[in-house]
């Protein structure tokens, strides 16, 4: 492998890591509260509120049903406002985060819904407030399922980040298209795919190990 190719791969790998890492961190920070609100306002839950539940649910579904490549183009004006440009790795983080947030919110909502209702009742019988039930019962009990879901989200985001090349976002996917496909560099294509496979394997195994460590059931 030439020195030049190695440098290209290293730079693209770093861009992918930054894109996915930053987008995952922000969308997790936003998706968890959103998932909690979705769960709590659902019918027969802690604080049922049909209006909030329906509005949030519709926004989440609309974002999730828009194909990522279209979302990315549609969000260009917003991206310009937030990062000052619509080209480059920081610019790609915006659509990636906005696409991942509703996905994570639904994962969190489903994980909270799966917590045994008997535990919520036990906490209510102890005089717990809705906020205490979320913080001390629902989130800790749902944590293994949330971590498993975040692993799923991270892997999906690695896939999506490959599309970020369309807005000049850089990363491994971009490299594979520009060199591997457009310049017929089979070696670049093969190396890129190999790195992506290894990265996904690493993320999945890491997530699995973490889930096993925090699950006490």
């Amino acid at each position, binding site marked *: 492998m030439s020195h030049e190719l190695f440098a290209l791969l290293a730079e693209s790998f770093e861009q992918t890591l930054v894109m996915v890492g930053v987008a995952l961190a922000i969308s997790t920070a936003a998706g968890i509260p959103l998932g909690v609100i979705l769960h709590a306002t659902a019918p027969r839950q802690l604080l049922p509120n049909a209006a909030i539940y329906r509005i949030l649910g519709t926004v989440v579904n609309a974002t999730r049903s828009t194909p990522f490549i279209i979302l990315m183009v549609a969000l260009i004006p917003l991206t310009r406002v937030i990062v000052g440009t619509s080209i480059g790795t920081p610019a790609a983080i915006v659509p990636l985060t906005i696409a991942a947030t509703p996905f994570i919110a639904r994962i969190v909502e489903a994980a909270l819904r799966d917590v045994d209702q*008997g535990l919520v009742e036990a906490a209510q019988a102890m005089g717990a*407030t809705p906020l205490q039930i979320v913080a001390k019962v629902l989130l800790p009990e749902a944590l293994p399922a949330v971590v498993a879901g975040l692993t799923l989200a991270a892997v999906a985001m690695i896939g999506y980040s490959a599309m970020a090349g369309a807005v000049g976002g850089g990363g491994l996917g971009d490299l594979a298209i520009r060199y591997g496909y457009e310049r017929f560099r089979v070696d670049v294509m093969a190396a890129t795919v190999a790195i992506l496979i290894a990265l996904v394997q690493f993320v999945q195994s890491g997530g699995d190990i973490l889930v096993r460590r925090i699950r*006490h059931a």
Partner: protein
Amino acid sequence: MIALMYLDGRIPTIELSGVEKRFATPSGDVEALRGVDLRIDSGEIFGIIGKSGAGKSTLARCINLLERPTAGRVTVAGRDLTALGPSALREARREIGMVFQHFNLLSSRTASRNVALPLELAGWRPAQIAARVSEILAFVDLLGQRDRYPAQLSGGQKQRVGIARALASHPSVLLCDEATSALDPQTTASILALLKRINREFGLTILVITHEMGVVSSLCDRIAVIEDGLVVEQGPVAELFARPQSATTRDFVTALEGMGDVTRTLRVAR
């Protein structure tokens, strides 16, 4: 608030008057409770027995208002729970320790942290929590298992954690909803012995809801028989057993006698 004294000098810990509960279902309303009156005195072990579907669990859940009665009043330790706002109700619920059939322990917390939960919720300081948790775990003989997760405990141990958790914040009533129904006979006996000891040593009022005749006969001072959403009979255990009036009571007594026969047969065989 000062609890009302009755003419016989006893202080009621729990009083239900005219408690009704209707559930709206797609096929019309279902009347789970149709006007229940009960008075449970301070320091007694009171049993509520009934067959499945009779309304026992709904009644249990109406006592701490996990289920709000459609009509009627629920008074616990002198406070009318049905008249309280959300925050006062949360406060009042701490007077009632609840023990569940399926334990309802948090799988993410060890035995000792499960017992600590109600104290954390009530805003105790960490040092106070640690002291109380050790004290109560020692009482239920689980100090050795304090760092185990529920998944690493036996059914009987889980229920003892459940009982320790219910006792932690010094309630005035222990409410046991089918607390031994998921346990084998031997473990049931040890849990019943523990409940008796709690009643004797702390003078705690205990309300036991069950479909098992053996539980009320070995544990309770007085019982109420519930049938189709109504209390059909109540009184001291021995009295009800000697002269059962309702069909449900007769069925339960017959079942218990049947068990007695089995025990006798086993003894003879041995």
